[in-house]
């Protein structure tokens, strides 16, 4: 009994520790301007949607009060984020799954060296390759393009996707597609009919990791884009009015920015739970 109560308290403490910052941001996004700075902080306050309305340019006249000049840039950049993170995730998971299948099922010459090489692309801190990328991208005319960021994120996530998916596919017995091949299917058909459904949980887990990485990426988005292809992370940081930092709108931006990943993770949670424990539990 005592132990149960203690366990409850511990869990509550942990929840408070992890959820407080999120609460803080979400609450701030609904607070009126003076309440945001109130000390001691107000836990009960009269809510407002003004920060969201100005963020999405629905009531632009309100924005002027906060010293905003011109329209909010958030909507197009949020869209950029969705397109760039989404497309790069789809690409890295798709390519990763195919190459993982090849590594898992065929005798690839120098397999271990190749796999290590693929992983090694993750070993450099991104900041080291920042300048070279900038130079190369400028030469190729990829600066401030969607395709530029998509390619970059895909490259970075691919190594991760290959390694993760290889682990998942290794766990699927080879006989699964062999049985299908004897039963009248080609290897390609067998892959789609048999291996893919089995690998779904792995694909979900991999996709979540890739999406989070691409979604949150700040550094390259900052140096490789300016206007057209700029994503949400650098632009949220830059929300400023003439009268200082517009905390309310930043909080609203962050809250909106949180949503897609939460929703996606929620949608695939069924697969995820199995995916994350895959290989841990022996079947």
């Amino acid at each position, binding site marked *: 009994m005592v132990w149960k109560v203690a366990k409850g308290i511990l869990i509550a403490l942990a929840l408070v520790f992890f959820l407080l910052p999120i609460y803080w941001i979400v609450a701030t996004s609904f607070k009126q301007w003076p309440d945001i700075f109130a000390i001691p902080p107000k836990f009960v306050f009269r809510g407002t949607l003004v920060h969201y309305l100005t963020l999405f340019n629905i009531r632009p006249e309100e924005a002027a009060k906060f010293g905003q000049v011109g329209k909010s840039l958030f909507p197009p950049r949020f869209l950029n984020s969705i397109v760039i993170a989404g497309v790069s995730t789809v690409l890295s998971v798709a390519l990763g799954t195919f190459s993982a299948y090849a590594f898992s099922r065929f005798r690839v010459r120098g397999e271990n060296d190749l796999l290590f090489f693929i992983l090694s692309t993750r070993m450099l801190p991104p900041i080291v390759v920042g300048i070279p990328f900038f130079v190369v991208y400028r030469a190729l005319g990829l600066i401030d393009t969607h395709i530029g960021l998509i390619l970059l994120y895909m490259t970075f996530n691919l190594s991760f996707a290959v390694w993760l998916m290889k682990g998942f596919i290794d766990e699927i017995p080879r006989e699964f597609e062999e049985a299908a091949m*004897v*039963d*009248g*299917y*080609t290897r390609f058909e067998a892959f789609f009919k048999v291996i893919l459904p089995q690998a779904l949980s792995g694909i979900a887990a991999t996709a979540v990791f890739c999406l989070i990485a691409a979604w949150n990426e700040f550094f390259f988005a900052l140096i490789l884009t300016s206007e057209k292809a700029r994503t949400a992370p650098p632009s949220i940081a830059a929300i400023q009015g003439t009268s200082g930092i517009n905390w309310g709108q930043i909080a609203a931006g962050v809250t909106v920015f949180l949503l897609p990943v939460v929703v996606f993770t929620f949608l695939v949670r069924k697969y995820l739970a199995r995916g994350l424990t895959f290989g841990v539990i022996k079947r």
Partner: protein
Amino acid sequence: MAEVVLRDVEKRFGKIQALRGMTLEVRDGEFLVLLGPTGAGKTTTLRIVSGLEEPDRGDVFIDGVRMNGVAPRDRNCAFVFQNYILYPHLTVYDNLAFPLRSKLWRTEEGEIRKRIEHVARVLKIEHLLQRKPDKLSGGEQQRVALGRAMVRNPRIFLMDEPLSNLDAKLREEMRVELKSLQKNLGATFFFVTHDHVEAMTLGDRVAVLNQGVLQQVGTPEEVYEYPANVFVARFVGNPEMNFLEGFPEGGKLYLGDLALALDLEKVWKGREVLPSRVLVGIRPENILLGQGGTVGEVYLVEDLGADKIVRLRVGETLLRVRVPKEAEFSVGEKVPYLLVHEKLLFFDPITEKRLG
């Protein structure tokens, strides 16, 4: 309906020679069991017939057509794997329908339903059709795997130790069912196992394989009573055949281990002249206790239920003797024993081949 011929098939994996000069014929409508220890090349043979593996040398014929280079799906074989390999995301019904929904065997859904219902009735799995495989017991999974092989009436059933994951009791029951299923279908079964009891009881013929080399092909009785060599003699039968050193000389056969001399003409019917040293083999049931003039000491009695195994010590040698379960012997007892003369087998000690 089909026959399979393997001719001089060789297969090597890296440093391991899996098959050497394998020549074997599976006749139409026959239940052929390929028997051998782990690593003998049994599974490789099946995989070569199915097309999942290509031979390095030699040819594979199905119904007289050379199959080398033909894709697995175009060979019309069914493969039943040791671990069943049912698709966990599909119901039993969809697992059974799986082969019929391929482009190659594209069948209309009404016909699929008819065939599945028929197969399910034969295998007594009608009540399981809507379940997922992970909700089935081992025996039920085994039946579904068989069903998936049966639905498209393949030319030949290739079976890779399909009973080895079942517990002992279920295995015995499935053995009978499998055998009668094969007879009722009139189908060609090519069945792989390491269990000699399974091989003896299931096979119309048994092919014994060791280290990639075919040792003997014959009916279960032939393989048991006239093993081609020492390996087959030891591998088939439980408990193992007894082996003794024998020295034929001057019309007598001296069995050194037992300090025994037998009349050579009573035990050796062959025409050829025996070498000066031979290996003499005798099955445990061909030694009779309580008769004969020489005596051994009971070293151990093992009750197996239906019969008993007595280990009889003669000098330094232990003989395995099968006795009826009614027989009572106690450890340390001195018992006379008799070797049934006409049941002695002779092997060349160097080539290990059976003589005569």
